[in-house]
């Protein structure tokens, strides 16, 4: 059985994402900066996930394949971060608590290894989602 774990996800800006965004959202730099999930090393060990391998992240409203890395800015066990952008927003819930702001941080996701799965590009993800 594939090991999987429920973690609390947050999504925030990073300087790598900021620079890549200005180069272009279809650039290699943007793909490398944003199509990753940062986790605690212990969580990755428990799920048998190697750094640099693809994982499937499922939330209450969707799923996305991203590359797993050990958090560059250390996260506590149980917490994971996909940098703000196209990949994170595939799974961010729209609920706003009547404030207009979606639940960008602090929602449960299930993470599991997805060996062999492909991490798709930004344009491909959005076009498929909106039926273009």
């Amino acid at each position, binding site marked *: 059985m594939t090991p999987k774990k429920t973690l609390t996800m947050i999504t925030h*800006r990073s*300087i790598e994402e900021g620079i890549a965004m200005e180069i272009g959202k279809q650039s290699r730099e943007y793909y490398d900066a944003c199509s990753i999930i940062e986790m605690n090393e212990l969580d990755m060990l428990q799920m048998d996930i190697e750094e640099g391998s693809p994982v499937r992240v499922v939330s209450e409203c969707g799923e996305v394949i991203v590359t797993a890395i050990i958090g560059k800015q250390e*996260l506590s066990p149980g917490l994971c971060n996909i940098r703000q952008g196209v990949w994170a927003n595939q799974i961010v819930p*729209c609920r*706003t608590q009547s404030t207009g702001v*979606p639940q960008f941080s602090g929602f449960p996701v299930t993470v599991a290894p997805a060996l062999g799965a492909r991490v798709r590009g930004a344009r491909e993800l959005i076009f498929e989602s909106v039926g273009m």
Partner: protein
Amino acid sequence: MPKILEGIGCPYCGCSCDDIKVVVSDDGKKILEVENACAIGTEIFLQATNHKRLTRPLLRQPDGSMQEITYQEAFDFAAKAIMKAKKPLIYGFGSTTCEAQGAAAQLMELGCGILDNCASICHGPSLMAFFDNGHSTCTLGEVKNRADVVLYWGANPVHAHPRHMARYAIYPFGFFKGNGFQERTVIVVDPRKTDTAGIADYHLQIEQGKDYELFNAFRMVLYGYESDIPEMVAGVPKQSILEVSKIMKGAKFGVVFFGMGLTHTDGRNHNVDIAISLMRDLNAVSKWSIMAMRGHFNVAGPNRVWCWTYGFPYCIDLTKGDHAHMNPGETSTIDLAIRDEIDLFINIGTDAAAHFPIDAVRHLKKHTWITIDPNMSMAAEVADLHIPVGISGVEVPGIVYRMDNVPIQYRKVVDIPEGMLSDEEVLTGIVNRIEELLQNQAYEVDEKSQKGLDVIPITSFPEAYESVGN
């Protein structure tokens, strides 16, 4: 010989640094070097003239391809789409000038739609808390000259506001802080050991989503109930809370900078609300200010412009013409999108396709989507009409509001590519086209009634119809 331009404003984050030096080629068309800006700001300047830009609008054809059209044709398409829509929405403005934000207000008044800006998905809850609880604040100049305790709560300026610490908060030599960082205590509250936490004197590694509890613990200490605090609050040991409380009470001039860590998580506006209450308590014994770490260089601008126009900073419903009302949750972009109330979406100076949850994008894309943006963003990729414009702060001058609501006049660095227009000119062009169409419509109705023909009553835009003098 290349020209060196000094005192240029940076079109990236809410720091709105206005000390940038830019070296421009002798023909004034290419940006060669950038000094003083952070890595992201530098990239914005260099990318502006580094690659071939789209210079004319693109309209989606029935086969899905995009075809180049003139600006006038684009104005006509946009004007008719706005007139046809029951509830159009214009959203974005983080990377536009205040002049464009004023023009957008005029457009939505005429089009009877919704006016919203990026605060709707970032610091909107902060603005709601300011309504409810007021807030004691200051300018970044006062922080530089006076602050001896700086607290970042749910903010990571090393990554999101790269020069915030260097230019305003921690490292600069201020009038009363001649030794810069040696005279300041830095506290960071964040669930991650961020790079900002790495340089702090105190890092309180809070459990994600437990901000309200930790604020409450600090308030309990200030009210003398420290013996009632449990050994751990929100993952932070009681001892750390007592130590940091002592520093906060002893501050001569303290400032809290808070970020998305408070507004994107459970509690939203209530987290900011209690942060303000803590400031009020601290101000009984010390001197404290609080400030939101605004994201874009002019995301505070629309809040100012629309406040003096309508009395509301964002989420403004103008569906009744010039009668405005605001109610986040009801008139906010994400909520309207999810309820499928919007039948025309105009994205300007932001990238909603990349930065909205995909469910909201899916709903908005069911109807006509217009993007006004200099770059081929994701919002431009999915748009039915993409109107390219000059880059504000690089090719287009204008007023911007820094995160402390200080207005700054930005200058242009290079000329806008030939034949291209600014955001303001595009929005004004659409306004003019709607007025023309309304006048023609009114003339046709008048002519038909004189000839005794059936008159089709104008049911939409009654206020706009009156406002053009009929």
